[in-house]
């Protein structure tokens, strides 16, 4: 579950072993070395280019398909038209209004979920009685799709902000909670044994060993939660809202402003990518020690 989200491996710069035999790379340069240096530039350019190839191809297809009549231009406007609509919305300030509405709901829900789920997860993982007591109900909730509960939230909390934020909280809580539990549970017992042999109190043991060891796993949960917060929020906004990216998309569709609808979808992609990039950056800072 977490490995698919793991950050790409960064090669260790220095050779950590002192006993290692000299590698072939350290042998004196051969006559062809200069040419090879030129060749070394090619992989670099390729490394920058490679990820964008598929995206460029996709956008080109999007641009060309409506223009040559493969799809109806009314239902799928060319990418350039969508981008034009995107910048129009950006200039008029309308896009920002929707983004900020969605973002503030997502962030509030997300942070509330973090504040609830991490301490709860720690408690569940650390105290066996709590875990025995709560596990069945957690299992039940976890397997109930968040969106299925949207009508319930709307009935109880109304169509306003509360129901949407509540839904985000619900959807974010479980990935964080479950990853916190597994992070705390799977701390290497030898580290705990070694630390307790130093006479550390349970609180210090927790603070100095268990929590730092669990941070990467907890953070994987946080990233999963951030992704699902956007997902359920957009869906909720599509059902009933007066602002937000989900609202922008459905409202544009109803008013037959198809380019605007696609602009909203593009905005969601960009937002999702940005949030993920920020979290990956933080995660990398926190788990520099990981192999």
């Amino acid at each position, binding site marked *: 579950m977490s490995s698919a989200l793991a950050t790409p491996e960064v090669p260790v710069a220095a050779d*950590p*072993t002192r*006993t290692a035999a000299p590698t072939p790379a350290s042998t004196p340069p051969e006559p062809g070395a200069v040419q090879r240096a030129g060749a070394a530039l090619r992989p670099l350019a390729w490394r920058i280019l490679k990820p964008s190839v598929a995206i460029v191809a996709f956008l080109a297809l999007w641009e060309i398909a409506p223009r040559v009549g493969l799809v109806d231009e009314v239902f799928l406007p060319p990418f350039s038209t969508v981008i034009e609509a995107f910048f129009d919305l950006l200039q008029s300030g309308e896009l920002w209004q929707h983004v900020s509405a969605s973002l503030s709901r997502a962030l509030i829900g997300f942070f509330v979920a973090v504040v609830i789920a991490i301490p709860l997860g720690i408690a569940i993982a650390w105290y066996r009685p709590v875990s025995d007591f709560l596990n069945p109900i957690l299992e039940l909730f976890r397997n109930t799709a968040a969106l299925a509960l949207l009508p319930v939230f709307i009935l109880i909390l109304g169509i306003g902000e509360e129901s949407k934020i509540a839904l985000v909280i619900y959807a974010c809580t479980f990935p964080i909670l479950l990853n916190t539990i597994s992070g705390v549970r799977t701390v290497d017992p030898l580290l705990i044994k070694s630390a307790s*042999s*130093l006479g550390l109190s349970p609180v210090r043991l927790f603070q100095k060993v268990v929590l730092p*060891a669990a941070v990467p796993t907890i953070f994987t949960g946080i990233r999963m939660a951030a992704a699902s917060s956007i997902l359920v929020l957009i869906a909720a906004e599509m059902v009933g809202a007066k602002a937000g990216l989900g609202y922008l998309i459905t409202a544009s569709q109803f008013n037959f402003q198809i380019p605007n609808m696609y602009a909203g979808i593009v905005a969601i992609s960009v937002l999702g990518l940005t949030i993920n990039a920020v979290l990956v950056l933080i995660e990398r800072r926190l*788990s520099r*020690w*990981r192999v």
Partner: protein
Amino acid sequence: MSTTASNPDRVQTPKLRLEHVTKQFDVRGSKDKFTAIEDIDIDLADGEFLVLVGPSGCGKSTLLDLLGGLSTPTSGRILLDGQPVTGPGLDRGIVFQQYALLPWRTARHNIEFGLEAKGLPRKERRELAEHYLELVGLKGFGDRYPHELSGGMKQRVAIARSLAFDPEVLLMDEPFAALDAQTRESLQDELLRIWKATGKTILFITHGIDEAIYLGQRVAVLTSRPGRVKTFVDIDIDRSGEDVRSNEQFRHYRHRIWTLLHGEVERAQVIEKEEAHV
């Protein structure tokens, strides 16, 4: 064969004393008790290097947990400087086979870990960590994370960590078993050098006969299931020459301990096979 621990030139209060230590465990789903170690009597003089060598199933993990204060003996006592051991503490330092370094801390901060537990101020911790990095030959490697270090270097860090908080006794649990042969031999030499430099009392547990003879002033041979001290062998060899492990004296000790152990190893294997059939 006599199993007395006393030795004429060790009449003063021993640094570490194990007095008739026995540890039994409950067997799940049965009223029987499983005896891991039985009536272990060991005295360690101040500054002594004692090696315990035994077959698998000699109860070494049990013994280590008892010494570390992580569990209590069923009967008997463990005395450190005449005081009974009642729990874990910084008067004993344990070096584990699998290093047990905190992977999110650099080598330096790992060494500082025990010093934090001791409550030393930051500046002092830093200075001590630097000193012990140098002692174990890792000067300049303080900022490396454990995954950037080789196995031998990790174990050096672990040794430095245990020495840094200045324990009375250093307990070493097969510390070099996971290393390759060359690294192991060089770390054995390093350990002897460190032992001489610090004058620490060391209790070293191993499966390796060569390692036991090379390191120990005295070797305690353990029996298997339950673990008991079969006998003590005083080691008196000249370690200054080249390839000490091949000389006459060394081979003599090797054969003697091998003979003592051999029966135990066979017995342990028979027991293991029997259990596998059940």
